[in-house]
């Protein structure tokens, strides 16, 4: 069974090996352009000064944190419905990257919040939902690491990922409700008036760079995961061959 499963991943390894350098170059170019525009094109805010530059890291990281969960949800569907071997690999590779982006958006948001709100953390609806998302990512990773058999672990986490995909809008809605109940109208709104093009363009370029970074890292992590599974299959095969040769000797 394991040999038959590896047929398709082999094609994936060949394709991704050819694709990966180009993706990396595109990612580096987008980051160079995005960072240049962030620091030299985008103006300082008249109230926040240079701290507004944090936004160009914070907002794309938050977007990617959510996109990564959708990639995982789609992969979970692929695991459960089509039993595609790569879907499982993709979901597993995406989870730590998603957790990292979520962590990045929490950290940058907190650093941005210190000069703006005067505190590192407020129980704002958005921050709270991102924190819950972070806990969910870590829970999924923990479940993956606890179940030993990778196929079974993939199925279990696929179920949990889909339940999470159903529940995330409910959690978001209820946290919004809770926040308006507890602290009305204290939230600093990001989108005051229409966003000026000198801010919008760097933001979009940075979002593109982050997306390319995600795809690069995701592909590299998937390749690692495929290799790790091959290694596991080889080790299991070697171990069973060793016991098969050892048994007659023990019998003699």
């Amino acid at each position, binding site marked *: 069974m394991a040999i038959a499963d590896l047929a398709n991943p082999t094609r994936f390894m060949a394709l991704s090996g050819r694709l990966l350098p180009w993706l990396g170059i595109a990612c580096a170019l987008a980051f160079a352009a995005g960072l240049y525009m962030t620091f030299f094109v985008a103006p300082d805010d008249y109230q926040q000064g240079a701290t507004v530059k944090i936004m160009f890291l914070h907002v794309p990281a938050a977007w990617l944190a959510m996109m990564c969960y959708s990639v995982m949800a789609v992969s979970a569907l692929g695991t*459960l419905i089509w039993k595609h071997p790569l879907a499982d690999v993709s979901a597993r590779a995406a989870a730590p990257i998603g957790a990292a982006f979520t962590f990045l958006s929490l950290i940058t948001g907190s650093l941005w919040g210190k000069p703006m709100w005067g505190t590192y953390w407020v129980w704002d609806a958005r921050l709270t939902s991102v924190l*819950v998302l972070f806990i969910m990512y870590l*829970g999924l990773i923990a*479940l993956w690491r*606890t*179940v030993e058999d990778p196929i079974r672990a993939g199925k279990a986490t696929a*179920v949990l990922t889909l*339940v999470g995909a159903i529940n995330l809008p409910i959690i978001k*809605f*209820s946290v919004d409700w809770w926040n308006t109940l507890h602290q009305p109208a204290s939230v600093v709104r990001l989108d005051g008036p229409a966003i000026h093009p000198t801010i919008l363009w760097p933001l979009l370029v940075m979002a593109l760079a982050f997306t390319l970074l995600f795809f690069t890292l995701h592909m590299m992590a998937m390749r690692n995961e495929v290799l790790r599974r091959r290694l596991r299959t080889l080790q299991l095969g070697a171990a069973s061959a060793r016991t098969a040769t050892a048994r007659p000797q023990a019998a003699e």
Partner: protein
Amino acid sequence: MSGPTPAGTWVGALFARELRLSVRVGGGALIGVLFFLAVITVIPFGVGPDLNLLARIGPAVLWIGALLATLLGLDRLFQADRDDGSLDLMLMAGRPLELVVLVKCLAHWAGTGLPLVIAAPVLAIFLNLEPLATGAVTLTLAVGTPALTLIGAIGAALTVSLRRGGLLLAVLVIPFSIPVLIFGVSAADAAITDPTPFLTPFLFLCALTLVASVVGPFAAAMALRFSSD
């Protein structure tokens, strides 16, 4: 006897079996109430014995206590049945597994959740709650704790094959229980302070329980099938 038994018979038999197992010796259902009492006793040591403060945070404390007590009892839901092999029999019985999980959850709630609801008015006295607030908290707990059990069934099914899955179960289930906690506490608070109507969050809480009674059994049944093959 040879024909298929009507659905009501086996559902009733399963419910009675689960309830009997959880209440009798070795079931440990009532330890949840004891844990609930212990949590409520510890709270004043943490926040101080100020009765006004306790009355204000009382509903939230009762809800968090009930949440923790429910989480701690969840690993009993499938673990014992897996250990003695009856879970495999249930999987192979040819009955809809979703329904089996739902019945097991309801019986588990009747054995562990219902005692928490009954104990809540007594514990509310420790927290200096008004009679109206006590009634509101008890009502929201009665409606909301089934949702906690049903959501927790997913975590229990996912971790059933793990030897020490209790802690992981709690970590997996807590994010999904946040909406229940929010609407439960805000419905109870609304009954006391009434800037907002009681009915709106209460109906949301009812809706969450209904959604959980669909999503929980289906996801848990799926997870149980995967863990067995």
